[in-house]
């Protein structure tokens, strides 16, 4: 194992688990130890992890609500301006702007803009696309998207100390502790 060869340029330390149940117990300990810059990497979302990590709710739903309101407003304004103001359509003596006939487009654009907000908002808040990340330099970490579960504590965490944090991670019961460099040097 490539131990502390990359001492000055360490991104963080990772430890690996084989099952979700072992992981959750360890995650609670990391949370209680008071680390701030750390994360859990799993191939699929695990029940109870929000609570175990102490993650608070995301503001994404409000972004999506904003998207929906924007779509609704835009659809209303567009139909009113195009059919009643800029080019009045007089058809069978019907009012130039009548809500019932405009509801389908209002609904569709509400959904469309909400979906855009959900999609772009979620990736934006997650800081993606981010095609390079220091964790990608670890071969072991490739299994984080397959069948292994990882806890990573970053070196920029104020409590991080190469020796003590390594000991702490080793005590959590994972199979291995590995240092991850900022960039691929080997």
């Amino acid at each position: 194992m490539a131990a502390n060869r990359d001492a000055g340029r360490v991104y963080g330390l990772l430890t690996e688990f084989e099952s979700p149940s072992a992981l959750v117990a360890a995650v609670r300990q990391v949370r209680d130890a008071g680390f701030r810059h750390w994360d859990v990497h799993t191939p699929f979302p695990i029940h109870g992890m929000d609570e175990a990590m102490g993650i608070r709710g995301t503001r994404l739903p409000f972004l999506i609500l904003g998207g929906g309101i924007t779509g609704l407003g835009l659809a209303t304004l567009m139909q009113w301006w195009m059919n009643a103001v800029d080019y009045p359509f007089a058809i069978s003596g019907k009012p130039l702007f009548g809500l019932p006939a405009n509801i389908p487009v209002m609904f569709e654009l509400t959904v469309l803009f909400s979906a855009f907000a959900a999609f772009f908002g979620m990736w934006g808040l997650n800081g993606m696309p981010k095609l390079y990340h220091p964790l990608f330099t670890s071969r072991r970490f490739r299994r984080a998207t397959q069948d292994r579960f990882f806890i990573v504590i970053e070196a920029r965490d104020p409590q991080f100390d190469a020796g003590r944090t390594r000991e702490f991670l080793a005590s959590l019961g994972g199979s291995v502790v590995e240092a991850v460099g900022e960039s691929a040097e080997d």
Partner: protein
Amino acid sequence: MKSPVTDPLDNTLDDPTRSPELVLGNNDFTTLTAKVSDIVLERRTPRAWYVAFIATAGLTGILFLMIGYLFVKGVGVWGLNNPVGWGWAIVNFVFWVGIGHAGTLISAILFLLRQKWRTSINRFAEAMTIFAVICAGIFPGIHVGRVWVVYWLFPLPNYQAMWPNFRSPLLWDVFAVGTYATVSLLFWYTGMVPDLATLRDRARGKLQQIIYGFFALGWRGSHRHWHRYEKAYLILAGLATPLVLSVHSVVSFDFATSQLPGWHTTIFPPYFVAGAVFSGFAMVGTLLIPARQWFGLKEFITLHHLENMNKIILATGSMVGFAYATEFFIAWYGGNPNESFAFVNRAFGPYAWAYWIMVSCNVITPQLFWIKRIRTSVPVMWVLYIFVNIGMWFERFVITVTSLSRDFLPSSWAYYKPTLVDILTFAGSFGLFFTLVLLFIRFLPMVAMAEVKTVMPIADAHSGERRSVGDYHGDIPRHARGRDDREGGSR
């Protein structure tokens, strides 16, 4: 497995007190990942794939040839005549849009209803949705007559300083289908990103790593990301659910808001939606059965999954049959002579042959799924799916053509017949559809790996803690659970 079954891959149960296993064959996360991603990354492309691809690509070529011919000559190359101004173009459009609905039903509605069996088939069904909507979108695009002003469909400034009429259901259609295609694509892609990351991390070729890596957006399974991802996925499902119901409702408005007997009925929106789901499930099954057979996915797409799909086909098929009966009843009970003529004409007029094909395929076929032997026999169900596909195409044909060909004025009645161009264009759209399906199964993960992992018993973080309730808890993906559940954790 506790059940005394002889076939290890038969997990169809009649015991309602426990749910069947959704992943068979002693798979764990490792083997599941390998079996699904190796289809794309490791396995040599089967020769049959190339043969099929050449055939479907050829058909696609015919589609574009026919479209080119149509553009050069005009819509006169189709069989349209004076009362029948809407022929196969609209029939095919409604047919293909309808097919798409099953994908959204599986991916969104079954997600909200916490049907965990959806995880094995949702990727495939959503892919089918997108390809079907692409095929559907072609027809209104090419049938406008003057294709060079096709942008008039959209509210874009043009040299006449005119805007489209927002009171027209045809314009609602543009927005409904456009939104549907976009949201389906976003939903499909969002669901696929974690699996694309899996492919990136397993790929051995540089090119594969770069391409999958690009589309994986840098996904690394961070739980802080999963947290927002699940929220976004849940909300997208919530948005897609009313959307999919609205799409075929709006499509049905194209007919229902007109004054034509046989079209002007309030039953159309729910009847169209049920028919769409019915036809879509048949198409998913048509494609899924060969795919699971050839690519060794029987452990993930199990007989239980197929049986569940057949039950949905039975339910929606019965709704469709009931709608046919209701239409006839209202035509008689409503006392409108034009309306009752339109329906008698459907069943006994010049298009009676089409009407009875429709009834035998759509009313009789699904009822066979009451019988468990039929519901769980793979070859039999595949044949029945084909009948449903045929029947549902004929339903759209019957609705569109019978009402138009004999409207109010007998002197203007005419019989509509498709031309060779009509037929080849429709066949070509199947070519495009199957080409896209073939590309999908060759280059993208067919089964949503990350999602299937969440429904495997070993995925339960509390396994052992509360085994008896655990069966229930482990069943539901974490994101689909209620708030109280999350707060009930051991803090």
